[in-house]
Every structure is written in structure tokens, then in C-alpha cells.
């Protein structure tokens, strides 16, 4: 570790925090601009001007936007994003019941996808332009170009309705056995993997091929190194930066993709919470969910950059 690297890392983290702050402003303004009034929405047809006015005051909706932003940010930072407008439950509690489910879905997908796409990407790079490479490319490209919505629906029709291998809905209450977890997660994970594997695999393949064309790989070939050694020892270490970036970007895609998948499979995750919140115009809940998504995204991208920096010998030594 040298001083330059530390400085780069610190500035990278600072940028992430600054971006998050900027995002929070954008999220706040974005929800401000949505049409409709919460107080109006809460009372629906029973709204009387007095009741609406009273609720508006109670929710600080009568105060200027920047004050409400600061108030909201302050509470967010202290871990209390407020109460849901719809059912008056603390948002922290709502999120706490859903977030673990989403994280679980994401981790299972990552555990399945990342090794698989790395193996596919590296092997395609080794047997570049072979029948194997073309088949893998064609298959992954076809899958990534089909919308998740379609894949999910087709998967349900095929595996749940016709073959009856897995349940169509991934909902369960209470503790689960390993077999049950597999049953519940199989279809959502499959759907998410289709996109993820293609993205990570393509980038891995390109990055490794790039390294395989370099002079140091030719030197290794002329030292008598066998293909396995050339790829694992010489190409892959230099491809870590781009691969880490692809993984981070793809995994952050999980978050957005999860919204669709969670809705289709009725999976009790953060994505569905967000969709429900939008439907009921539950502003504080929307804001909290979006901020969580953004923070996760920024965290992953920063992590990838840091991995890239740490894998660069010019910065490390």
C-alpha cells in the first residue's frame, strides 16, 4: 500500500458518498414532482378540505421543500425514515422484513451466476472462434435480448404450469428447508441469471482475449507455458479490473431486474414493496426504497473500482 493508492481509494469513497447525497436530492425532487397529493390520496373519496389540510400539516407538507428535504435527510441518517403514509407502520420495520429476502435472492443469484459466467467467459476466450465459443455466445446473446418479463412468464408456463417442477409463486412464510429454498428460488434465480450471465460472460471473454493478445502472453507461450497456465497465470490477473466492473454493474442490475421478477413471482422482496408503494403514492416509503437501491448500486460500483485499483500493480507498488 502506498500513499498514492490510499489517496485514490479515499477520493473514490468520497465521490461515492457525494454522489449518494446528490442522488438523495434527486430522489426527493423526483417524488415531489410526482402528480397527486398524499393527503388527498390517503383520504380518497372521504377527503374534506379540513381533514386534508390537517393531515398536510401533520406531515409537514405545508413547509417549503428544502426544509422538508433536510428534515427527511436528517431522519434518514439517524436510521428513521419515518412512517408509511398508508398504514402508518415504521418504514424501517417494513424494509427490515423485506430487505433480507431481496438480499437472499441476490446472493443466491450471484453464487450461481458469477462462477458460471466466469467459467463460460474464460473458456470462450481460450477456444476463441471455435464452435464452442460461438454456441455460448449465441445462447447467451439470445437470452439477454429477451426481456425478463417474457423469460419469467415462459419459465412459469413451462416449469410451473406444464412440468409442475417448481411453484409459480415464490412466497413462503416461516422457516425453510434447503430443498424448499431451492424450490422457491429456482425460477426467479433462473430468470435473473439469463441476463446476468450474458453480461458478465461477454466482458470476461473480451477482457481475457485482450490480455491473450499481449506481448507478455506471447513471451509466456515461448517459455513453453501450457494454455491453462497462460490463461490463469498471465491473462486473468490482468483482466480482474474489467471483470470486477462487469460483475458489479450486472449485480446492480439485479436490483432493478428484481423489481420485475419479484412482482411476477410474488416474491416478498424490496422490489415488490417499492411497486406497492408507488401504487399507493406512499412517498416516504418510495424515497426510502429508492435510496436503498441507489446506495447499493453506488456501493457495488465503488467496490468494483476499488478492486480494479487494487489489482493494478502500478498503483499497488
Amino acid at each position, binding site marked *: 500500500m502506498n500513499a498514492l493508492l490510499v489517496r485514490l481509494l479515499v477520493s473514490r469513497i468520497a465521490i461515492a458518498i457525494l454522489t449518494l447525497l446528490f442522488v438523495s436530492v434527486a430522489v426527493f425532487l423526483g417524488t415531489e414532482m410526482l402528480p397527486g397529493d398524499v393527503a388527498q390520496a390517503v383520504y380518497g373519496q372521504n377527503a374534506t378540505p379540513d381533514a386534508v389540510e390537517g393531515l398536510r400539516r401533520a406531515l409537514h407538507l405545508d413547509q417549503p421543500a428544502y426544509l422538508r428535504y433536510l428534515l427527511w435527510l436528517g431522519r434518514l441518517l439517524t436510521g428513521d425514515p419515518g412512517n408509511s403514509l398508508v398504514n402508518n407502520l415504521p418504514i424501517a420495520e417494513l424494509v427490515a422484513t423485506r430487505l433480507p429476502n431481496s438480499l437472499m435472492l441476490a446472493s443466491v443469484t450471484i453464487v450461481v451466476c458469477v462462477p458460471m459466467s466466469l467459467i463460460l467467459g474464460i473458456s470462450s476466450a481460450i477456444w476463441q472462434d471455435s464452435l464452442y465459443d460461438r454456441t455460448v455466445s449465441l445462447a447467451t446473446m439470445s437470452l439477454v435480448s429477451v426481456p425478463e418479463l417474457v423469460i419469467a412468464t415462459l419459465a412459469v408456463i413451462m416449469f410451473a404450469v406444464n412440468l409442475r417442477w417448481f411453484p409459480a409463486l415464490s412466497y413462503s412464510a416461516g422457516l425453510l428447508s434447503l430443498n424448499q429454498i431451492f424450490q422457491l428460488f429456482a425460477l426467479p434465480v433462473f430468470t435473473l441469471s439469463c441476463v446476468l450471465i450474458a453480461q458478465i460472460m461477454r466482458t470476461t471473454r473480451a477482457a481475457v482475449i485482450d490480455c491473450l493478445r499481449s506481448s507478455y502472453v506471447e513471451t509466456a507461450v515461448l517459455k513453453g507455458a501450457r494454455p491453462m497456465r497462460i490463461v490463469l*497465470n498471465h491473462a486473468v490477473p490482468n483482466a480482474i479490473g474489467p471483470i470486477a466492473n462487469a460483475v458489479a454493474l450486472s449485480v446492480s442490475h439485479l436490483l432493478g431486474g428484481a423489481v420485475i421478477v419479484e412482482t411476477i413471482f410474488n416474491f416478498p422482496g424490496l422490489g415488490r414493496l417499492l411497486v406497492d408503494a408507488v401504487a399507493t403514492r406512499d412517498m416516504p416509503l418510495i424515497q426510502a426504497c429508492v435510496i436503498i437501491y441507489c446506495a447499493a448500486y453506488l456501493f457495488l460500483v465503488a467496490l468494483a473500482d476499488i478492486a480494479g485499483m487494487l489489482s493494478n500493480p502500478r498503483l499497488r507498488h
Partner: protein
Amino acid sequence: MAPLVKVDRLCVTARDERGNNRAIVKDVSFEVQRGEVVALIGESGSGKTTIALSLMGHTRSGIKIAGGSITFDGQSLLDMRSRDLSIVRGRDIAYVPQCAAASFNPAHPLLRQVIESSQIHRVMSAAEAEAKAIALFRELALPNPDHIGQRYSHQVSGGQIQRLLAAMALVTDPKLVIFDEPTTALDVTTQIEVLRVFKTAIKKRGTTAVYVSHDLAVVAQMADRIIVLRDGIIREVASTGRILTQPRNDYTKILLAAAKPRVRAATNGIRKETSVPPVLKVMNVVAGHGAVDERGIPAVPLLRDVGFSIKAGSTLGVIGESGSGKSTLARVIAGLLPATRGEVLLNGTKLPRNAAHRTRDQLRRIQIVFQIADTALNPARSIGRILGRPLEFYNGLVGDKRRRCVAELLDMVHLPAAVADLFPSELSGGQKQRVNLARALAAEPSLILCDEVTSGLDTVVRAAILDLLAKLQRDLGVAYLFISHDLSTVKAVCDEVMVLYAGQRMEYGSRGALHQRPRHPYSDLLISSVPELRQGWLDGISEMMPKETSAAIAGVAGGETCRFFERCAVRIQGRCDVEGIPVRLLSKGAEIRCQRTEQELIELFTP
């Protein structure tokens, strides 16, 4: 005894963009005896590297061995399966590649890569291999041999990395070592040191070697026998001595003629007329990167108090190693990197330091031609448009007039008018550099800054470009600032020469004066490092003094003391590194900056 390598009727083809196979090596047959050093010499495209790689059964992508046989130590290489080939590679045949820095994996420390082949082939334990590598580092005169292996490729200099590559090749005691242009990218002063240690190592082991190069003078020092290649065909094979003294093939004769320095400059020595102001006068220029202090000195100075003048229609050569500030000087004059102190005068008028503040006419009068002809030309524009642009911008020429002018320009640089319709990718390296020259000429400048314009070119093409430069100067009276790291090129075209070292002007005088002793110790080192076209030159010259240095971009702390101090053979401890350097006018007419007096220099450099 059977030869170690026998190449018989080797044919190699390359697939071009259209998918056609083109022969790049045709019917090549030769032998390499045990203990012999054979050189493959030729220009780019002659097939020398392709042949060298095929000796290891390796071809680059798109290239195929189409016929013939290669026998190495009794085994037919081209019939071997790839598994068996990789057993031979690195163990019996080792390769020292040209792109030195890129040939080391940036992700691993150097030592691990140096001993890698010994580990792949399991010829010795890792500890033994490391001990052997360190012994080789010592033998190859690498600084700090015990610890240099822990470094990474970006942490060592070009000359060091080339020696590390040689150690990598020698660690398994291979039967054959292939050197592929190992010193081409190095400065002359570094090249001579690398050549010397290579030669000693080869001699000591009796290594059989194939030495690939385009440089006859270098090959003359290393090889017992020379194979001259052109367009994939062997033109001549003979002992080194015979090739140098009695070449039989016409192409060999051309190569020899092109390698010999020939003076083309319009004038000889400094012209005496002083009434006309010089076309360019540079006074006490300081430039560099980083924050500038109140005296106008930047945090990282690249030029330190440089001054000179160029007379109309004459050529000033700027010479020095990489990192000496040569290109920075051109950028300062062109206003691309504004000077932080000092002035640049064009025909006696002060120029704004920044190009953005100069008038169109001032811009027109100074043109620049870059080293890498490829990247200086927009690949998406036809040559006609590239040349037409300055005509329109500076002279307002349009339509037919412009077209006629483009044709005239092409004629001036000896290219057919039809070239105007071609794109840069359709031209050869030499042709591209001609177009670059024509582009500069389109502005009708009074001064052209030539930044290493012939460095990327083959010997024969280079000679033709130098001829062209000289002719254009005679016809048009344009002045050149000619930047080069190659002394013989500078010698060929320049009236005056300035020697730069780490941004300091070390010597400044006429071309003739530079080749006369006494001169600045650094000029002396530079000049005596240029390989001469005769056998035994390398063995004949005396060991030079302090070698490895942190040279080029040294710290700023020293201020005005001599930057060459660390490498100087005749330095005076406690004076050169403490006092400011005086400017001395030598009786030969040149100025040097050195603590040593003329008398001292004469005595010190008289053998």
C-alpha cells in the same frame, strides 16, 4: 557435427484483410552451427521476425507455415504436436523479444517471470532458479541484483528490462537463444551497455544465437554470419566481415550505403551574416509541468534555461536521450506547452507563449511534423483533404486552385498526384511521412519543427526522406529544428547541433565542431556510443564510467548544477554537484556548460 538448426525451404503465408493468403517468407533455407551467432537482417516486412518465431514453431495470428522443414537438434519442429513443442520452448530454445516492457506481465514481480520457464520445465527447484537468476543479474550488470527481481516491470528502465529478458532466456541454459531486435528501442548510450553484456554472456557460454535486427552496425558487433533478407527472400548469406567489405548483392550494397552517414546539409557551419535577425530565437526558456513558482520555474521542469537561434534556411539539430526535453522544446516553440519563463522570437518579434494567443500568420510560419506518421494523419480523411485543409485555413484556397496546389505539394515530396484520392491506411510508412511533410509545407512556413521524423522508418526509406528534407531546404529556404536521438541522422542534415541533457543545453555549436574534440563529456559519451559499421568496434572501446543512473527526469533540488553529474566520467566531486555550471566557449567555436576547462578536457579525453 550436424548443425543445431537447419531450415529447409521454409515458406510462410499471412492472411490479409480480404482473407487472401500472401507469402511473406519464400523458400528460405539456412543453417545455424553450434556455437555460432547468425544475424537475420532486413527492413520491416522482410520476414525476419516471422522466421525467428518459426524457429520455435510459433506463428502469430493470421500467419501460417505453408511448407518446408525446420530441424532443431535432430527433431523436426514443424511436425511436433503443440504439447511437445512447449517442452522445447523455453527449455532448449529461448526468445528475447523486442517490446521489452510489454513482454513482462505487469501483474507479477519480475523474478517470478524470469525463472518461470525453469519452473514450467522443472529443470531445477525454485530456490536454485532464483539463485541462478540473481547470478545472471549480476553478470548482466543489473543494479541491485539481489532485489531487482522483486520489482514490477513498470519500476525498471528500458535498458534494465532488456537485460532482465536476457536473464529470463538464459536461466534454463538453452541450446539456442533468439534475440529479436533487443536494443532497437534503447538510447545509444544504453544500447552499448546492453550489447556489451549480451556479447560477454554469449561468448562465455558459447551460446548459439540468432540475432534479428535492422541495424547493420549493431549486427556487425554481434554476429559471425549475416543473412540479408528482403521481402521474405534471402538475398545474401556470408560471414560478417565479407558482407561489410565485399557485399555481392545489390540490396546489401544499398543497405550498407544507407547505413553510412552522408552529409546533406545546405550549409556547413554557422553562417556569418548577422544583419538579418534569425528566423527563430529562443531565450532562456524554462518549461515543465506542475505549479509554477514566482521565478517562473515549474515543479517538474523539463527544460532549464535553454536558448539558441536558427538562421533562415538552416537546420539546427537537437540531440539527446529520451527524457532529455527534445520534444518538449518543439512543443514550447509551437506554443503547445507554454514556457513558464523566457521568450521565443520569430523573425525578431516576440511570440505569445501560448499558441491560442498567436495570430494566424504566426501559426502559419511555424509548422510541426511528428514522429509517428500514422497517428498524425486522420485515418478517415483522404490525403487530398488532409493537405487541402491548411491551404484553405492559411491561404484561403478553394476549389480548383486548391486541387492544383495539393498536386504541387505532392510533387514536391515526390508522390504521384493520384495519392490525393487515397487514405492514410493505403500508404507505406515512408509515404505517410512525406504526406506529413507536405502538410507542413502547405502553410509555406519559415520554420518546420521535425520531431524524430525519421525514427520510425527503415534505413533506406530514412535516407530518402533526409534527401528530400535537404532538397526542400535548398529549393524553399525553409529552416528546420531537427530533433533526433540518432546522431548519424543529425550529422547528415544539420548545420548546427545542440546537445540536451535532462533539459539542460550541454553543448551548442556547428556540426563540424561536434565531431571534434574537446567536447562536453556528455557529447563525448553520446558520440562514442554510436555503433560503427566495422567488426570489433564494440570490443575496442573502453568501458565507460558510471552507468546506471536515475538520469533523465531527476529532482529539481540541484538548481543550476550539472544534471549530468551522476553519469559523468570526469566529474569533480564537491564542485560539479554544488556549483552552478559555467558556460565555456571552446576554441573550435562551440559553447559548452561544464566545470572542466578546455585544456582539462583535451587532456582527459586524449587516449
